[in-house]
């Protein structure tokens, strides 16, 4: 029989206001095995933990139930407290009487009754707990970064600077990401390329960083400290070692009609291309969809003009398998599709563009070589209208329910830059709210209004109507003056909502990292663990976790790196001891469990057993506890009940069921 101590936490008034904690403690004493019960203001405080330790010593406790907040919150705290007092940490169970009780119920009697039942279930479980000892697993001292934008680059640099090997996997032919497409950056108006390019160069030159561009993660297996990842290096059709980056092939390529991804499809590129001048690596790829050689078998001009003989039409995709201790997701974002917002005439007029397209228009390397002009007729605009919140803060299925966060600032930036460079252009911004929290952000926005005379109007635009004269009639409302506005504009810029990169769902599934309804990766704790996924060993960097601007992304990238370094710095990891194990005398050797194990942790061996005096060799399931992650799939697949899960055993769960239904 166990000697159980029950500790009921008030959590200030969080629990005590709705649950009669003294009553829960009193009722606990009537439960089998319970020899001690008390309630206290804050069990998680030092004083609270001391009470647990004292009781363990004085009452010789063999098991502990803490009735408090969610085990996801403080299970580790109380386990450590018990361990310090000499008790096996796995003899501690938590009854969640805060999140699952006091916070959701109002009636004290009802909540107290429920708290008592939850306490009983935990006591029933502890009665069957056994001391468990964690195993150890090794840590591969290498990190994988998925995505080579500013988030991925920064995380890679920080991890590599700490002395660990880092691989970056980037889907496109060059690292750089969205930031490489930006012209200037707020709030200081630095040229984006000027601050990004040195980072790209540093990453590519770093001896600890290895970059796989034009590559994708194909398969992930393993677990924290010991992931095995298959990376598909797509056929570039150009030998990376031989290519000198001279660019002649791109010049001579006769197929120049492919839309340029880098310029958001506003102009075209050759079939063999590097996405932009500062691309890293500076080695082109052949777009096999656009290449005449691949389409018709004739051409081969690039091969003829290449002095280095680097063109290789026969190149095939290559699969690289590598082991990693930590994985950082930095898959970034894209703008949403605007098909459902036809009231803004995006599909009808070339002069209605997204803000990201405007970045390309403003950029010297862009389709207009940096001149602000209408894409329909090349004329300089006189009236420009910016529309905020296009697809953001939208509760129907046309857009996204969240605020994209970066639009207010970049719109102020665009407005300011245009007014600065083209003082004769009138700029009007239609906004719902202007949101500028951040260092020097509101000052920046005010400068746009006060110094540059940008006209901000509170009120969303209802419709943009292309006119026969080529102008765009913008129908908006000014909510402050209570009048409707009809404005003829030459160009309209839509602050289009951003969404996580569409590939992230596939990647999250491979990583078994959880994802929310908007496809943002979920963090382990919204406040306290914002750069970690709930899946151990997976870290989050940049917009894949939620909308962010560049300063925030870089800060989070550094934070993710520190978390990854903290993991890689360990030689061994303690493994979860709640693993499956098979009772040799009950095992049929039928392989059912092996078939459902996602980790390949179960193998079959011929072993001699002594079954009540009968000695024979049997085919038996053996669990590799270093591989087992404790899901329990095998325990239900096993018909004989030979397979059981430590910490969540059949009898423990049944004891909980019985206690609840009592």
């Amino acid at each position, binding site marked *: 029989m166990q000697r159980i101590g029950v500790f009921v936490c008030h959590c200030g008034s969080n629990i005590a206001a709705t649950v009669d904690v003294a009553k829960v403690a009193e009722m606990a004493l009537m439960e089998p095995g319970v020899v001690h019960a008390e309630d206290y203001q804050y069990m998680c405080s030092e004083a609270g933990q001391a009470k647990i330790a004292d009781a363990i010593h004085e009452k010789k406790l063999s098991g502990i139930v803490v009735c408090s907040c969610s085990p996801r919150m403080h299970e580790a705290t109380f386990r450590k407290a018990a361990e310090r007092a000499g008790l096996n940490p796995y003899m501690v169970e938590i009854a969640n009487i805060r999140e699952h009780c006091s916070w959701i119920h109002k009636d004290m009697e009802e909540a107290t009754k429920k708290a008592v039942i939850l306490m009983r279930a935990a006591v029933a479980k502890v009665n069957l707990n056994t001391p468990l000892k964690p195993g150890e697993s090794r840590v591969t001292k290498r990190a994988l970064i998925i995505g080579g934008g500013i988030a991925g680059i920064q995380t890679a640099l920080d991890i590599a600077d700490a002395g660990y090997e880092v691989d970056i996997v980037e889907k496109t032919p060059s690292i750089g990401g969205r930031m490489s497409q930006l012209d200037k950056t707020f709030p200081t108006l630095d040229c984006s390329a000027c601050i990004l390019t040195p980072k790209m160069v540093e990453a590519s030159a770093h001896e600890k960083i290895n970059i796989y561009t034009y590559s994708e993660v194909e398969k992930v297996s393993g677990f924290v400290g010991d992931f095995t990842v298959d990376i598909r290096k797509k056929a570039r059709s150009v030998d990376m070692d031989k290519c000198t980056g001279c660019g002649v092939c791109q010049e001579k390529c006769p197929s120049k009609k492919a839309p340029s991804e880098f310029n958001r499809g506003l102009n075209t590129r050759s079939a063999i291309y590097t996405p932009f001048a500062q691309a890293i690596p500076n080695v082109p790829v052949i777009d096999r969809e656009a290449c005449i050689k691949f389409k018709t078998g004739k051409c081969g001009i690039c091969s003829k003009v290449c002095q280095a003989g680097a063109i290789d039409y026969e190149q095939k995709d290559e699969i690289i398998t590598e082991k990693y201790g930590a994985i950082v997701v930095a898959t970034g974002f894209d703008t949403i599709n605007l098909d459902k917002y036809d009231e803004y005439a995006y599909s009808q007029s070339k002069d209605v563009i997204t803000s990201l397209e405007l970045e390309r228009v403003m950029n010297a390397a862009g389709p207009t070589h940096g001149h602000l002009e209408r894409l329909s007729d090349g004329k300089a605009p006189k009236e420009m209208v910016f529309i905020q919140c296009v697809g953001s803060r939208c509760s129907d299925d046309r857009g996204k329910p969240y605020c994209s966060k970066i639009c207010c600032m970049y719109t102020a930036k665009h407005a300011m830059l245009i007014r600065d460079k083209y003082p004769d252009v009138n700029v009007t911004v239609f906004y719902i709210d202007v949101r500028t929290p951040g260092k020097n952000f509101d000052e920046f926005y005010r400068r746009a209004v006060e110094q540059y005379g940008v006209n901000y109007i509170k009120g969303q635009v209802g419709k943009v109507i292309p006119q026969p004269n080529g102008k765009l009639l913008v129908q908006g409302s000014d909510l402050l003056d209570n009048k409707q506005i009809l404005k003829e504009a030459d160009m309209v810029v839509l602050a289009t909502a951003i969404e996580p990169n569409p590939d992230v769902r596939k990647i999250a599934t491979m990583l078994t990292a959880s994802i929310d309804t908007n496809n943002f990766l979920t963090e382990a704790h919204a406040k306290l663990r914002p750069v970690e996924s709930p899946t151990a060993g997976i870290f989050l960097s940049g917009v894949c976790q939620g909308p962010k601007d560049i300063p925030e992304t870089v800060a989070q990238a550094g934070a993710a790196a520190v978390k990854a370094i903290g993991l890689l710095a360990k030689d061994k990891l303690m493994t979860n001891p709640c693993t499956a194990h098979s009772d040799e005398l009950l095992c049929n050797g039928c392989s*059912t469990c092996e078939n459902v194990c996602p980790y390949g942790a179960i193998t079959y061996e011929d072993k001699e057993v002594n079954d009540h005096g009968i000695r024979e060799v049997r085919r038996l399931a053996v669990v590799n506890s270093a591989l087992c992650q404790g899901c329990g799939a095998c325990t239900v697949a096993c018909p004989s009940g030979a397979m059981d899960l430590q910490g969540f055993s059949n009898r423990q769960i049944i004891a909980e069921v019985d206690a609840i239904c009592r």
Partner: protein
Amino acid sequence: MQELINRAKELLENGTVARVLGWKAGDLPYNPEPAYFESAESLKDFVYNGFCGANLSKYMIEASKLEGKTLVCLKPCDTYSFNQLIKEHRVDREKAYIIGVGCKGKLDIEKIRNQGVKGIESIQGAEITDAADELKIQTIYGEKTVAYADAMLERCHVCKGKEHKIFDEEIGESKETKDGERFDEVSRIEKMSPAEKFAFFQKELSKCIRCNACRNVCPACSCRKCVFDSNKFDSSQKANVDSFEEKMFHIIRAFHVAGRCTDCGECSRVCPQGIPLHLFNRKFIKDIDELYGEYQAGDDTDSKAPLTNYTFEDAEPSIVGKRG
């Protein structure tokens, strides 16, 4: 039958097999029982007739541990069970010499009795070589006749076919016996109201005496130790606390063999209380066929079983309510 005995003798004598697993006559004309024969001489007691319903594949679990090969006589439906046991590594194919025996439907003595035939002394027409469609039964009240088809086990009316799925050689002719649809009875129950369903199963299951015959005969229920005998789930067999335990036993039993049950029908054949236990197994088979694609356990030895398999698009559990 003689052909079978002759061949068994031959294989015993030339040392191919060390023993023969078949049936010998019981103490009544209609209850032959599974038996081992270790010498050519002992084969004089060997029988194979319409009452040899017993599925011998389960015996091969133990026989696989013995020295030398065992000749085992398997009817077409028994071979599914044998395949399933191979898949689960419970029998050793190398230790078995399988003679696929012909089958023209197996008989159910209860069906004969239910037709008012009592005091049976002897039965003619049940021999495997006999082509008669009638049984001639000598009783202490005189001779009675019963149509062969009317005396057949339920499972033979919905026979899966007379093809042996695995064998070393085949002996004896088979005759098609299927004249019904396998899932008709299940469909009929599915259409009842919840109260009617409950009443039906309550009535049937209340007869259960927990003798475990169904479990012991079942080739899929071959656990070394049943969960209802161990204390892994706090469920070891004891006096029933409540009427629910029978249901729990039968639901769990059916669930444990779901996707593994070949529908051999032995559970219902041996139940001394006459509970139609196959209706549980067949419900799972029907659901699996409908939801996850047709699957016949024991059809082969390497396919993935439905419960250790999945697709992303699998039906949600809410389908149960929607199907009505």
